[in-house]
């Protein structure tokens, strides 16, 4: 599909470069072959397998409810995508979810009028956490996995302290309905769950954002931060915004989970690893610079389908962690080769050593007469 560029032809005006190469079909098929595209195929295959195990699952209203339950992890997968495509990690997601859940439970109580202000407060907390994660990583120079692990430790400690470790707080039904109910009287499926609506809206937003200047700058920064810096990008702020997006996605997931899972400080535990698994399954390269946001969401759906399949096959759900571990290792090992670029390490874990390959050889200056065979350097 790709090739080394050919020798430059003598100076004539060329037709403008086409925007894309090949027909839509060809590009589509080409995309499916990449890890980022293959995950969609994987999701479909898994879906078929689940339906084969349990035909009732194929009914539209069941599917829709399944997607609604997967919505939180699909949302955090997209959030984690932003951070990973920038070359970093966010391991604090679970703690942020727990914080938000507990805030909702305790601050709203049975008072509907509090819903809006508390929602604002929750979003503010999400922004603050993302800001801290981002600034500690970029400005203090601490590797993101350490910053976010530390944040996880501190934040979950705080949450457990404030709640004493017990399930507390009981937010109003109106708030819980965000996670539980939906638009009623919809044809065919009867109920269109709010979480699914939220997921779709956020997915559209995410795709839109990645096509905006910020999104392109983000992925270019993850690909090559030095080059991005020379281009005038403020690398620390570009990355910090990714962390903020990630924490915001955890916040939204938390809001949904209040309705779906109740209020308890252990809600959300381990979600950061689910998010990373989903992102990696979606073919996004760790170390940054490559991958699509929808593939991350698809990876989450595929993962949930896999868990559902295992459920139907009566594999205890306690094995989920193992499944995730295998997927992470396998996907990272394979994806690096599949995209044809190596897995890059977080900057601090790499020694700043000299480039091992021979430097670009100096081109021979033009001869006094005649022309040189035009090769490709």
């Amino acid at each position, binding site marked *: 599909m*790709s*090739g*080394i*560029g*050919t*020798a*430059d*032809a003598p*100076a*004539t*005006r*060329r037709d*403008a*470069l*086409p*925007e*894309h*190469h*090949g027909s839509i079909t060809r590009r589509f098929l080409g995309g499916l072959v990449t890890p980022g595209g293959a995950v969609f195929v994987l999701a479909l295959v898994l879906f078929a397998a689940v339906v084969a195990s349990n035909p009732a699952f194929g009914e539209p209203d069941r599917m829709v409810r399944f997607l609604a339950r997967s919505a939180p992890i699909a949302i955090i997968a997209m959030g984690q995508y932003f951070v990973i495509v920038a070359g970093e990690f966010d391991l604090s997601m679970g703690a942020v979810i727990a914080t938000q859940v507990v805030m909702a439970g305790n601050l709203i109580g049975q008072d509907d009028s509090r819903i809006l202000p508390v929602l604002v407060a929750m979003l503010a907390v999400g922004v603050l956490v993302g800001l801290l994660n981002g600034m500690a990583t970029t400005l203090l120079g601490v590797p993101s996995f350490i910053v976010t692990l530390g944040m996880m430790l501190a934040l979950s400690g705080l949450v457990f302290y404030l709640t004493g470790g017990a399930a507390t707080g009981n937010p109003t039904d109106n708030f819980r309905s965000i996670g539980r109910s939906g638009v009623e009287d919809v044809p065919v499926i009867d109920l269109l769950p709010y979480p699914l609506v939220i997921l779709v809206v956020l997915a559209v937003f995410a795709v839109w954002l990645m096509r*905006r*200047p*910020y999104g*392109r*700058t983000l*992925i*270019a920064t993850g*690909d*090559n931060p*030095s*080059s*991005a*810096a*020379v*281009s*005038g*990008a*403020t690398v620390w702020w570009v990355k910090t915004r990714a962390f903020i997006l990630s924490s915001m996605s955890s916040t939204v997931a938390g809001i949904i989970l209040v309705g779906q899972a109740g209020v308890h400080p252990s809600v959300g535990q381990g979600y950061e690893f689910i998010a990373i698994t989903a992102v990696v399954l979606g073919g996004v390269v760790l170390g940054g*610079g490559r991958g699509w946001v929808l593939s991350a969401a698809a990876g989450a759906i595929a993962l949930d389908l896999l868990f559902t399949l295992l459920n139907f096959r009566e594999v205890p759900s306690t094995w989920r962690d193992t499944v995730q571990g295998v997927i992470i290792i396998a996907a990272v090992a394979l994806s690096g080769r599949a995209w044809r*670029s190596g897995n890059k390490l977080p900057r601090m874990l790499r020694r700043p050593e*000299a*480039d091992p390959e*021979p*430097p*670009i*050889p*100096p*081109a*021979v*200056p*033009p*001869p*006094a*007469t005649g*022309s*040189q*065979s*035009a*090769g*490709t*350097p």
Partner: protein
Amino acid sequence: MLAPATPDNAPGPSGNPGGGPLLRARGITKSFLGNVVLQDADIDLVPGQVHGLVGENGAGKSTLMKVLAGVYQPDAGSIEIDGEPQHFGHPLQAQHAGVATVFQEFNLLPDRTIAQNIYLGREPRKGPLVDTGRMRRDTAELLTGLGVEGLDPDAPVRTLSVAEQQIVEIAKAISFSARIISMDEPTAALADHEVALLYSIIERLTARGVAILYVSHRLKEIFDLCDTITVLKDGQMVTSRPAGELDESTLVRLMVGRTISAFFPDKDPDTTPGEVALELSGAGNGYVDGVDLAVRGGEIVGLAGLQGSGRTELLEGIFGVRPFSRGEVRIAGRPATLRSPRGAVRAGLALVTEDRKATGLALNQSIATNALGVVRAVFPRRTSAARQALPGLLSSLEVIARSMDQEVQFLSGGNQQKIVLARWLGTNPQVVLLDEPTRGIDVGAKRGIYELMRALAAQGVAVLMVSSELPEVIGMSDRIVVMRDGRVAAELPAGASEVQVLEAATGAGSGEQSDDQNDDQGGESG
């Protein structure tokens, strides 16, 4: 001038009778991706003698040295040691055959000690444990054998100066019983007294019958040390003669002195330079000092100099990558403090860096993403206009690719460089800084870039170009500024000859020698 031991008297470890060549290389030819960088080179290395290899950048000196070191495999030619044909598929093989090389980028582990570095991979043992005492003693012996005192075998290499690290590399070579030691620009980062120490080490080595291949730009040293001098030009051997038959000016003439062909586009005779677009007074940032420079709109100023002279650091200073701490910068007459690339871009500057893969492009991204990179990062609101103009821009640059979607890592070097340029042109800069703009690019693409530079100048843009290719500097520049050791050494007009430029860059003509201290290794990677 140090007198090297004559080969006949040297107690050569090679046992080579009658002082014939220890190493004989014939017809060495090497190309990279179609570019012939070395053609039919011959060289003889005689025990106890120092053989100098000179030539300007791109002449093929490094390549020849790396072929002998086993880093590159020649496309044609033969190498014989003691009359036995050799084939070096890997640097370790060359090492075992007795050829050691001291590169400019040292192969040392900075956090390990001198002794640990020297014995890496072959640590001596006493029972199951490593015999650190013996490592230390043997290392100390090696060092005193080179005539060096005051180096602690237990000192971590990162605490050593460049000169000391170099000594470690040489000691390492000796510990492998190397009979041939190649040195690549060994004094590029040394101060005067350190150079003197190197001389004495070389003297000792030759006395022991080691053959030395000495690659350098510094002609004074070539004449101080070498018995024979080989000159390469454009990948070919010009001459190989005893040092006594040559002098500095002859050497320079042999190194350069080609006729500049009509390869470079003509300057439009009607353009007169406009106002001063960029002005530096006394600028310094720790790597350069006291630089006064002015570039007018419509002018192309060439910045020449040897590797390590500070040219890249000067551009980095202007662009805010390594901000100036001293002196003043004026853009279009107004003072500007450029503390970041973003500020520089907003002030109308552009920087095409030396290494497009490392700092110029995001290789996994598409042509479009790369070409719109600066606009998106600094002027996001202009993105859609820039995107609409992009096909036209790429067309005028004659970029050859399948589509704007193609990942830039699959483009040829010339096309990649054009994408970098497209990235900057989209911001309509007033001052364009170029660092080795045609490095690693084939002839056809070079021409395109030259034409582009002329077109920019014709539009009134001020162009400051760093280049190590003398024909390019002379063919394209309206004025040439030569740097040496972090300072401006000379300003030459458009008609300057290559010889003049090289003399100013090496300080050869004036008999000066580098006089600074604490150089680090290779101030620029160029």
